[in-house]
């Protein structure tokens, strides 16, 4: 099958790649662009380990064709830290020990970023519903929620200072 040429923006930089029509965005990110932070858990949109943000919307990259990314702006876990500094959400996941094996963590952090972009001050219930599509099979969710709410408080503080 003829490969398709796809032009996108990934974490702020122009990125081009070739993909077969049946290649998912997740596979293109991992295999063509070398961005292996996004994980394949279920491959069917249930677990959220492959979460990325496309044109401001949180999506499962395993349920999007790479060809659909033409002209789109994509944010992945690799784009969160800047200049060697962890993003506050990443830092809070460490401080709260909100991970164990870490396989679900990139997806949870990207989903959390999308939450805090849309709602800087979520309630615990809002955070739990927002993250219901991200499954963790070892740590559980309590520490994750604490980390997200703590990161939200810190980001609000940073905004006030700035």
């Amino acid at each position: 099958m003829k490969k398709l040429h796809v032009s996108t923006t990934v974490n702020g930089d122009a990125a081009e790649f070739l993909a077969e029509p049946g290649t998912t965005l997740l596979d293109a990110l991992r295999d063509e662009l070398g961005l292996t932070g996004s994980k394949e858990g279920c491959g069917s949109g249930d677990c959220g380990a492959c979460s990325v943000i496309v044109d401001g919307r949180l999506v499962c990259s395993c349920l999007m064709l790479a060809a659909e990314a033409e002209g789109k702006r994509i944010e992945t876990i690799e784009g969160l830290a800047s200049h060697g500094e962890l993003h506050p959400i990443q830092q809070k996941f460490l401080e709260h020990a909100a991970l164990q094996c870490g396989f679900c963590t990139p997806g949870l952090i990207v989903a959390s970023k999308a939450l805090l972009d849309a709602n800087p001050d979520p309630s615990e219930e809002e955070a739990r519903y927002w993250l219901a599509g991200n499954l963790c099979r070892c740590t559980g969710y309590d520490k994750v929620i604490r980390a997200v709410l703590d990161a939200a408080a810190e980001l609000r503080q940073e905004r006030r200072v700035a």
Partner: protein
Amino acid sequence: MPQFEYLAPASVDEAVKALMSAPGARVLAGGTDLIVQMKAGRTRPAAVVDVKRVPGAIGVRRESDGGYSIGAATPGADIGEHPTLARDWPGLVEAANLIGSTQVQGRASMGGNLCNASPAADSVPALFAARAVCVIVGPGGRREAPVEAIQAGPGRTSLQPGEFVLEFRLPPRPKRASDAYLRLIPRTEMDIAVVGAGVSLALDGDGSVAEAHVALGAVAPTTLLVQAAGQALVGGRLDEAALDRLDAAARAACSPIDDKRGTIDYRTKIAGVLARRAATIAYSRAEAR
């Protein structure tokens, strides 16, 4: 995933041509059903036609008469964020937003939900109750059909080769009219309806029901528009007697399957219960408008 030709047409004409180019070509909107089915090998289309670049396929537009056009490929997240749609059609918006996770809401559309033709599709009973009309485009041009004309059976639609649903039209909403959708699932999130019930109604000045439409999901091979259940509410206030008539009419319409999600008896009983509760919510919303 099996390979296929990917086409992303930018006009209705190109999209119809693309769909006609390969037998069994499939329409791609959000992909949350289609891509899963292709990965599992349950469908192997020779061509996938991504219709999201076709003008009209994405977006919620409020018309000058107060009605709405909703692009059939509009993701649930866009539907939920529209500034007035949830005020005028709260039941339709809550039904569309119940589908899947936040990630799924970033992609999944009502057009896909309808044309995937699952009996348990959440947005479809709400579309039925709203008396939504589908704008269908195809090799014969453009036609309109009531939303209940699309599902033909589990996984099957009545759309002809080359046709696809471009948008949904919702009628203008009078004052003192509203809707509601409820579904039963054993969990709080991320599950498939055991039963779904959508109710839309409009009230007279004195608070009696002037018009009512009731639709049920997951209790028959396709979503059901239960005319007798709507009629049971018309002509009076929403009192216990009216709710009893609604409950009985809803149960009488059910022909569900027995499966791991629920037995025939359970689904039938719950259809009546959810119809009552959805009607009660729709009524109080209508009174408040």
